[in-house]
């Protein structure tokens, strides 16, 4: 693709944006437009494919090609699109319900296959569009319209699920930090292969403040750590604290003694970072958990087609139909 330079405005559509005032989706939309303007892909080669949910209205607001699919199936539709035309930059926008509930199967298989899609999962820990039922990422005990006495479901850790499915790029960002969204999406775009990006998103109406313990500016400094390739695992207001991994466990150390983060390692360290979520005493990780290079599905499909076409010559319909074992009458 030729390196095209767009402005975020080029990526706005003519449709009125229709989320609730204060919804975290706005910030994500803006940051996405800013990021996509910089990936060097012309508008017509970008397509956004979504399922159903508040988050899934996303394609309508983007000035490129868009497909608002059906609930849970965005990853499957996008797999078809990308495999049919690997030249396109295909982005999947989905919610915690759309991706992890009804769409869970397509999600894990897309990640396993390493289809070169960028999957943005807006995690508000709730079904927004259907007005407030718990989702597979809602914490146990959450009271919602369908769990009036508290949900008895244990939630997924989306990062663990993505890692466990074999995703080659796994990252996390948050709606309150547009810069971080942008840099994360740029890294995702640069990755050749599936990129799963969990985006903590606030639903002001049905689950307000779900992430507030980690998402506000102050909380972010003290209670999150940003995983960046080649950077030390440090956090705190003045980056004064560090993490060191030993034997699957994690300890807090002085910044100077912190391990350096390497998302490309084959060893299962990314899981250790996901495990931080379970620890009250440790920060939650944002940033890039894993970044592995593996053959992509769409490229492998194309290679096989190309290789066999080169080997056998372009298929000839007549030869296919008129085989050796045919016989002549009359």
């Amino acid at each position, binding site marked *: 693709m030729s390196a095209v330079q767009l402005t975020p405005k080029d990526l706005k*559509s003519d*449709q009125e944006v229709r989320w609730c005032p204060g919804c975290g989706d706005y910030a994500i939309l803006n940051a996405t437009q800013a990021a996509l303007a910089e990936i060097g892909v*012309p*508008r*017509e*080669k970008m*397509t956004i*494919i979504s399922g*159903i949910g508040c988050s899934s209205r996303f*394609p*309508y607001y983007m*000035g*490129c*090609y*868009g*497909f*608002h*699919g*059906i609930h849970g*199936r965005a990853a*499957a*539709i*996008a*797999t*078809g*699109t*990308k*495999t*049919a*035309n690997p*030249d*396109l930059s295909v982005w999947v926008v989905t919610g915690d319900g759309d991706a992890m509930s009804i769409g869970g*199967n*397509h999600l894990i*298989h897309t990640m396993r296959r390493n289809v070169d899609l960028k999957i943005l999962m807006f995690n508000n820990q709730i079904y927004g569009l259907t007005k407030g039922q718990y989702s597979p990422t809602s914490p146990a005990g959450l009271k919602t319209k369908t769990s009036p006495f508290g949900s008895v479901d244990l939630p997924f850790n989306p990062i663990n699920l993505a890692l466990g499915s074999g995703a080659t790029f796994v990252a996390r960002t948050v709606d309150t930090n547009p810069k971080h969204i942008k840099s994360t999406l740029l890294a995702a775009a640069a990755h050749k292969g599936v990129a799963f990006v969990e985006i903590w998103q606030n639903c002001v109406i049905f689950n307000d403040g779900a992430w507030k313990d980690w998402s506000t500016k102050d909380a972010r400094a003290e209670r999150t750590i940003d995983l960046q390739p080649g950077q030390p695992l440090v956090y705190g207001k003045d980056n004064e604290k560090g993490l060191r991994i030993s034997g699957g466990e994690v300890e807090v150390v002085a910044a100077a003694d912190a391990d350096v983060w390497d998302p490309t390692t084959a060893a299962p360290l990314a899981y250790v970072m996901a495990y931080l979520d379970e620890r009250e005493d440790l920060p939650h990780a944002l940033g890039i958990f894993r970044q592995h290079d593996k053959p992509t599905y769409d490229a492998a*499909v194309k290679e*096989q*087609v190309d*290789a*066999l*076409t080169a*080997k*056998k*010559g*372009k*298929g000839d*319909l*007549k030869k*296919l*139909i*008129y*085989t050796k*074992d*045919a*016989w*002549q*009458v*009359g």
Partner: protein
Amino acid sequence: MSIAVTRQDDVVIRFAGDSGDGMQITGNQFTDTTALVGNDLATFPDFPAEIRAPAGTRAGVSGFQIRFSSTDIYTAGDIPDVLVAMNAAALIVNYKDVAPGGIIIANTGNFTERDLQKAKLATNPLEDGTLDGYRVIAIDINARVTEALAGSPLTSKDVLRCKNFYVLGLMYWLYSRPLEPTLEWLAAKFAKKQDLADANRTALRAGYNSGDIHEVFQGRYEVVPVENALPGTYRNIMGNHAVALGLVAGAELAGLKLFLGSYPITPATDILQHLAELKEFGVITCQMEDEIAGICTAIGASYAGMLGCTTTSGPGLALKTEAIGLAIMTELPLVIVDVQRAGPSTGLPTKVEQADLLQSLFGRNSDAPLPIIACATPADAFDCAVEACRIAVQYMTPVILLSDNYIANGAEPWRLPEMDKLPHFPAAQVTDPAGYAPYARDGKLARPWAVPGTPGLEHRIGGLEKEHITGNVSHNPENHQLMSELRRDKVLGVRDTIPTPEVSGPREADLLVVGWGSTYGAIRSGTERLRRERNVSVAHLHLRHLWPLANGLDEIFARYKQILVPELNMGQLSRLLQGEYPDHRFLHYGKVKGKPFTAREIREKITAVLEGKS
């Protein structure tokens, strides 16, 4: 002593043995050779259940029936003239179907005490009078093969594996067929396993020679080539293979590449398997995680500009229905192939039924019309697949193509199409931004196909109701009514590009038999014979297009006193027709036994109806 060769016109042979006995290979070899001889033919393989049952049991019996003839035939025959039974179970399961006085060849080597036990037989049917009235040829094939292969480097177990080629040789002798095609096939097949090639060759020849030497038969038979066969190039084809070829051809005729998103399911899996081989045609096959992903990738691929296609059977179609609605709303071309099997639920997965017609018509939320066509025979499946592609592309719509287990695994000689006479229907993907609107419509009411990657045509589609012309989301009540009518009318408009089907038989008669799908052969054969032999006033109308129904049917129906609709279901086409053509009465004749109609059943039913007995 020289053995007399008698001429026969029409023969039905059934090979039956254990799942491991290679009956399908035997049948297919006999079929290919017979095709080359120039007979018309039809086959009916009958797999038992899905899993290999324990050897020797009734549940493990696998059958292959072939009918071949000097004249045109339409079915694999009702009643075998010859049954080859490789073991006791195969005999007991099949002998009742054989024509009285017919030949039964039994491999006595597999009628030991243990074999009888496994087949749940108290006594040996070869000895207890069970087969009175048949011409039983008892041969210890195991022993003969072992003799013939004495000195072979193969293990004795592998030697016994060759017994199906011994039987094949014997049948070639009996019906005066050449050995060469099978010898060639063996050479190619076992090019890297010379031992096996040799052994099977030897077994084949031994079987053939045993006809002369052992004089087990009183005579040989000859079935001469079809004389009045239409001139052309022919080849033997199975239904699933024909669908695969038709899809490739359809895509090429539309100027597109084919994309198949699928999930294996009996009896549709072969289509995926065939297409997976055709990479040099630019065919992409994605074996997905389930049926939903299968159709969704196909939709995504059509969206990206390929010809999306998905293949499945009934339970899989049930899973795809929500996504079919999406294809209808987004008006993307898509071919959905349903190879029907017996249900409901998992049902009888390897048996035939024609019971997905109403599912195809109505199995979706809300009013969601799409065109439906059904193939009649293995060869017809090619034309139908091409036709499905044409409609999908010209009308920007999903199309359902119905096949079934009988067509899928059955074979017949296929008169190959003349390549330059195949219809062309180039897909018109738009590129010009001037005047482009996602939901504008052409004369066929199709919307323009604008593919991602095309500069200036960026637009958004999806499953919410679309505004006429602009394609924007619209909740406007009048627009929803309009779009619902447009969707209906677009599909009904397909009528304008399909011919009124022709009646076979008299223009006016006492009875019209209306059929669809794989019952074609039984009905055609049954009606022709009744006319020919008993001068019965009956005609046959076969419907390829199930939705929309072709123009002119009403007038056809009006010309007959009664209308009979045989179907392998509990009443589906009959129900559809009754709703659409209330001026006529449609008498349903159903069969749900996991088996095709026999021509005799059709004849008997017709007779009964005409005698006022049903």
